[in-house]
């Protein structure tokens, strides 16, 4: 194509902007994600799953919420200086997620890895909507996300989670407790109200996205056995993903 005196290159390649339309099994890899409020024990379960998959010889990669090397400093700055509004809170987390999707999750799934994510789009759907963002807008914002093979939701009563969290540390962080929403001046009370809203959103998402519910009050071993059974059933046809023996 010519434009004025310039020879213009051919058509621009289309980005894979809506990979979820192609369904997860369009890629050789598998994607398992864990969701739930803080203190639900999901990270413990995911790390046990990681060890097990690794011992079975799979190429396992772990991706954590808010961990993009390009974006996390900006998120940290926003939180530290309390610069974030519900909209920019939502967007900066989506930016972090986009970087991990483009640079790691998507190419790894194409390469045949088993990718494990601690928190996924559902975290954003729950938190951002609890902060007042439009439900539909947030879902569209994450339209570029790959649909997980299985999304586990760790269901726990709010009081149980709060008990677990307060055992392990001094108090709650500003945004984690939803202090930006002026629900209460007391961080613990604010946390309770905010996380209560988040649980409501998660509960609505169980049928909407077909989340797999795990009773997070059961013994750790019982939960892990159940999770491994489910994951294994999705790996039967993916034996080729094992990089050893």
């Amino acid at each position, binding site marked *: 194509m010519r434009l*004025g*005196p*310039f020879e213009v290159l051919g058509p621009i390649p289309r980005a894979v902007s809506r990979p979820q339309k192609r369904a997860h099994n369009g890629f050789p890899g598998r994607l398992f994600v864990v969701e739930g409020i803080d203190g639900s024990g999901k990270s413990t379960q995911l790390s046990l799953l990681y060890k097990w998959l690794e011992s079975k010889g799979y190429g396992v990669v772990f991706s954590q919420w808010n961990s993009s090397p390009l974006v996390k400093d*900006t998120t940290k700055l926003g939180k530290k200086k309390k610069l974030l509004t519900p909209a920019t809170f939502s967007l900066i987390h989506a930016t972090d997620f986009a970087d991990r999707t483009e640079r790691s999750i998507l190419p790894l799934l194409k390469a045949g890895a088993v990718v494990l994510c601690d928190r996924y789009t559902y975290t954003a759907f729950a938190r951002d909507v609890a902060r007042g963002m439009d439900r539909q807008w947030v879902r569209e914002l994450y339209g570029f996300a790959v649909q997980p093979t299985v999304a586990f939701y760790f269901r726990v009563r709010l009081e149980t989670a709060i008990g677990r969290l307060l055992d392990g540390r001094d108090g709650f962080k500003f945004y984690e407790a939803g202090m930006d929403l002026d629900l209460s001046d007391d961080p613990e009370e604010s946390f309770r109200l905010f996380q209560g809203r988040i649980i409501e959103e998660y509960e609505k998402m169980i049928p909407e996205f077909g989340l797999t519910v795990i009773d997070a009050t059961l013994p750790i071993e019982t939960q892990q056995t159940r999770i491994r059974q489910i994951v294994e059933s999705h790996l039967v046809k993916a034996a080729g993903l094992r990089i050893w023996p």
Partner: protein
Amino acid sequence: MRETYGKLLPGMSLSDLGGKLIVIEGTDGVGRTTQINQLKPWLEEQGHAVLDTGMTRSPLAGEGIRRAKEGNNLGRVTQTLFYATDFFDRLENEIVPALRAGFIVLTDRYVYSLMARAMVRGVDPEWVRSVFSVALKPDAVFYLRLGIEQLVPRVVFSRGFDYWESGMDLYPGYDMYDSICAYQAALLAEFDRFSEEFKFETLNASAAPQSVFSHLKIKILRLLEMDSPARLPSMLASRAYAPAVQEARLPCAAGVTAVDFDWTEGTIAADPGHSNGNIHGPVQEVS
């Protein structure tokens, strides 16, 4: 009443946003910054409070974007969202409060540039529109347009080849000249499409900067008097505004519509001999 392009951000009330939101858009190298640097003191001279803002100037994300662009591993969706974060930080914390306080907000680029950059990178247009649908509709968008033949040399000879301005993330392996031609031509095509959809007022940026400035002044004066059209004749006839009107009557390069000013009626109309009539937007009737 002000509007957005779709949804409303939580806590954002549109009812008391006085002020004027004026956007200067265009590809790289068209002289947006030069114009804004002249418009701001000019408006302040007339007694208007002015906020000027532009891409990557947010306290939240500006520095992060600059750092991310130092490498070459910023993906296209990530890029779009990082810029969106920067934009919405400025929208909520600068633009909206300024409009509420009755300021004129001059913004160097707006969501259109961000949308164009994402779309030429092959990001799903529907998705891009949805992300930016919570943006405020501006009062006016002045699109400084330069053909590709002039645009490329202006960018290259003023700043040299820049990795991102040359679209090298899109065309790895090509040399920077081929890449910048292809990239800027694609952007230009996107802007031209937006120009109709979003009713841009197009100005020919190949004219001398002073001529472009004069045209911008006339258009902005009209905009500022929309609320009280009865004042337009006396205002335009006043000493302060006469030079702008005079300058705008100077001959300018093809493509830029000459402005005819009827001193007796006090109306400005697009000269039908030069334009398709809508370059200036709907002609204001003054009673």
